[in-house]
């Protein structure tokens, strides 16, 4: 067995073991253990990857393994990673582990919760290591479907509605995606192998038909405007760990897929459609930011802010140059970490105050110093303060976007940049209302401080945010090395 497949095998084994355990505490410990091993393995892979690169191995994907699965249909189990996939794997491992800790206090159907959560994680890991479209699609659906149970059973508010809406929109998107995958398969000589497809040139009329299907198919999961409507409801109703994983990791499946499948495999169409989708992305950036201002529910604020930030990712991708791509990938990581911390903190606050309405909170900094301080730090990262990860990502995206000198790109870029100001408004407003000022509710004085598993969970995700902000070079190098291939490929069909 190769080392990448272990990333799928370990969670599966964890799930199988969990089936035989009925003690809630044991379930938590085994889940943490399983995903802990997974995280260590991911770090180990990262170390191996960098060692290989340092030794001069410049092939596009490392640790590849190609096993024939359905021979007559040319379906393979083909895995391998490049720097971008590796970065996503690290993100997934961290957020998943943090999610396991944050959910420590779930008492209702504990085992089922962890099983669903880990199955979701399995799908995500599998997705990022796949280089075969069939396997990738399979893992994509494996990652999405547990959301229904996770939100439906352990969620809050109108959870049945939110769970159904989210599942149907995402599975509907995957259905569109399936059509596109079949199209790619038949128009590139009956193969699902992404490396081979990239070498082949699909006929342009096929690209024109299938590119929007693939891009939108993934775009729905990435909350591309106007297909984002599942996201606020879904996030608001989901339990903490699920919001973290979903906004932090699962939505990145969408952006990653749109980049790796839609754009990479159909570069000509990507160039042709770039202005249109860039416009959609810019609208999403603005719309999400203004939406966040208008909300009073913490989770909705974050959900809309996610729409805005993910819009920036699509925006960066559609700027079609290396700087912007780097920014887009960095933003995937950065937003994944930030939003995970946000949702973790919101979960902690909600668990204590039993409200997510910012108007009812106030002065929490005095009572819950740990949670409040982390919230401020992460808020600063979110509005792009230098020294934190958000700045690095957004800087790259905007610098890249401004490299396109024509009028329409300029307009979109100016629009998107202006959203930063709006972001500052809603972040600072929440910080001011919720954390500063007098304590509005006497009962808040009795709120318990953060317990150990909450601290572990939050810090696990917060530290990388600071690390990336202070020392982004290792990550940008990692990403840019891999982007080289893609940029050349896309540029070959440029304007």
């Amino acid at each position, binding site marked *: 067995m190769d080392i990448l497949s272990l990333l799928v095998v370990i969670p599966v084994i964890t799930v199988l073991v969990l089936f035989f355990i009925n003690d809630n505490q044991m379930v938590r410990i085994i889940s943490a253990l399983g995903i802990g091993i997974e995280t260590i393995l991911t770090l180990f892979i990262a170390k191996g990857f960098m060692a290989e690169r340092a030794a001069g191995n410049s092939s596009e994907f490392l640790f590849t393994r190609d096993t024939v699965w359905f021979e*007559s*249909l040319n379906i393979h189990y083909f895995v391998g990673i490049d720097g971008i996939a590796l970065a996503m794997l690290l993100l997934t491992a961290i957020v998943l582990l943090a999610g396991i800790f944050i959910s420590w206090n779930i008492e209702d159907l504990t085992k089922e919760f962890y099983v669903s959560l880990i199955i979701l994680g399995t799908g995500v890991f599998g997705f990022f290591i796949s280089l075969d479209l069939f396997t990738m699609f*399979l893992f994509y*659906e494996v990652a999405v479907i547990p959301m229904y149970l996770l939100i*439906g059973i352990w969620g809050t508010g109108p959870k049945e509605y939110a769970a159904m809406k989210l*599942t149907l929109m995402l*599975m*509907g998107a995957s*259905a*569109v995606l399936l059509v596109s995958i079949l199209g790619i398969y038949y128009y590139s000589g009956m193969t699902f192998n992404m490396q081979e497809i990239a070498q082949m040139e699909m006929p342009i009329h096929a690209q024109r038909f299938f590119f929007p299907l693939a891009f939108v198919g993934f775009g729905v999961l990435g909350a591309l405007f106007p297909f984002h409507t599942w996201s606020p409801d879904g996030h608001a109703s989901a339990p903490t760990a699920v919001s973290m994983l979903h906004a932090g990791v699962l939505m990145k499946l969408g952006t990653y897929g749109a980049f790796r499948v839609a754009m990479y495999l159909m570069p000509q169409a990507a160039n042709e459609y770039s202005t249109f989708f860039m416009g959609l992305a810019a609208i999403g950036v603005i719309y999400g930011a203004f939406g966040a201002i208008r909300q009073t529910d913490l989770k909705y604020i974050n959900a809309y802010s996610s729409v805005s930030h993910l819009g920036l990712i699509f925006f960066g991708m559609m700027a079609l140059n290396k700087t912007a791509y780097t920014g887009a990938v960095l933003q995937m990581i950065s937003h994944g970490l930030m939003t995970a911390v946000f949702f973790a903190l919101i979960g902690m606050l909600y668990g204590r105050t039993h409200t997510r309405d910012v108007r009812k909170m106030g002065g929490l900094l005095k009572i819950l110093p740990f949670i409040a301080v982390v919230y401020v730090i992460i808020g600063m990262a979110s509005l792009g303060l230098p020294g934190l990860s958000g700045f690095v990502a957004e800087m790259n995206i905007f610098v890249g976007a401004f490299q396109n000198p024509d009028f329409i790109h300029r307009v979109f870029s100016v629009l998107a940049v202006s959203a930063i100001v709006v972001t500052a408004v809603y972040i600072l407003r929440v910080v001011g209302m919720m954390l500063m000022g007098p304590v509005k509710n006497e009962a808040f004085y009795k709120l318990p401080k953060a317990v150990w598993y909450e601290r572990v969970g939050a810090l696990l995700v917060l530290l990388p945010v600071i690390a990336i902000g202070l020392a982004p070079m290792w990550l940008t190098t990692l990403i840019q090395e891999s982007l080289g291939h893609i940029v050349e490929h896309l540029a070959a069909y440029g304007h």
Partner: protein
Amino acid sequence: MNNYLLMRDEFVLLGIILLLLVAEIMLIGKNRKAVVGIATGLFIVHTLVGFLPLAEGTMFGGSFRTNHLLHNMKSIMNVGVVILLLQTWTWAREEWSHKGRVTEFYFLIFSTLLGMYYMISSGDFLMFFLGLELASLPVAGLVAYDLMKMRSAEAGVKFILMAGVSSAVSLFGISMIYGISGSLYFSEIAQNFHLSGLGALGLLFFMSGLAFKISLVPFHFWTPDVYEGAPVPVTSYLSVISKAAAVFALAIVLFLIGREFVSVWKPAIYWMAVLTMTVGNLFALRQKNMKRFLAFSSVAQAGFILLGILSYDQMGMTSVVYFSAIYIFSNLATFGVVQVISLKTGREQMDDYNGLYRTNPKLALVMLLGLFSLAGIPPVAGFFGKFFLFMAAAAHGYYWLVIIGVINVTISLYYYLLVVRAMFLRKSDTPIESFQAEIPVKIGLALAVVGILFLGLYSPFYDFILNLTTNI
């Protein structure tokens, strides 16, 4: 004489049927419960014997033909029937044996299965029609098995009338084809059957007869009422085995004689596929009764199978057989659970399933897997079945049909999730209390689950079917 061994499956099954009749006489006044064990045991033996390889060839001057594909189609159906029989173990023993009416159940089920064998293996229209009738008539008896219940008797009458009409239409079509080509033998028809108005009409009439059996839209109106009225095991049998057999028969006959008439039947199948998927789904959305719900869901599922027939090549045939095999396991898992619950508590509404996971977690999980497989969610088998059907259709450029198909998959996901919602998300003041099913029933459910879990991931199964269809 050696030649007669080609009919081994049919002979063994016939032997079992006769043996059951004898057993019925021998057991007068004694405990009829034994019949259940005898029938199930004998059928398991029959299934195991059926796995032994069989030569290819024809009998009776080409009236009866068999090859590896046909033989294995029968084996797939056999496995389905074994699971079904195990699941009906309790039903037959507790409900019927003391009323002295248990042998008929097996007698009728095996007779209709025998009819399906002949239908699949037919080499001419005469044998085909005999098989079709033998497959249909006993079903009426099965549907009306619960004579004392109004609905069951009503369903029986409904079925026999519909089956009669559809057989007549089919026969009319066959007579036209005979008039054009001067032969009943498929092989001769294939040579002498050229595109003409009458021939096209004949083929369409013949197809609509089979469409009744598969309950393709617009020939599906009997399905929900009959499914709801019939006892659950019979519903299960109708929607799984009977449907699969009719699909196999349709695919085979079209492959044998339809080549000249592609321009006639392909549009017909295309639009029937669109209608069947869409109408079946839209009606399933609003159903509250689990049997009606599964009835409409199985109508929709049949629509997907047509995508494979439409592609009309080896890959299409493979995906049809592959999907049907998976569909048998998936639907038997869901019907198995419905049946167990209906028998223990008499409750069949979707709302009755509220909170099922908290009282009967294992049953709820079996149901979940079955529904996910029907909805085509990985990594369970249904995903692979649907994906390969879509691949087969896309291979011939039917992208719009694939798009309609995937939209329907999403719609179907909604109503499958409704059941999941009831079982997992909802709570109930009067949940179905926790109970244990008998061992054979459990084995029946477990076999279905094993099929769902492994048939898809285990790729040699696909290759196996692919090898069977090489000389179609």
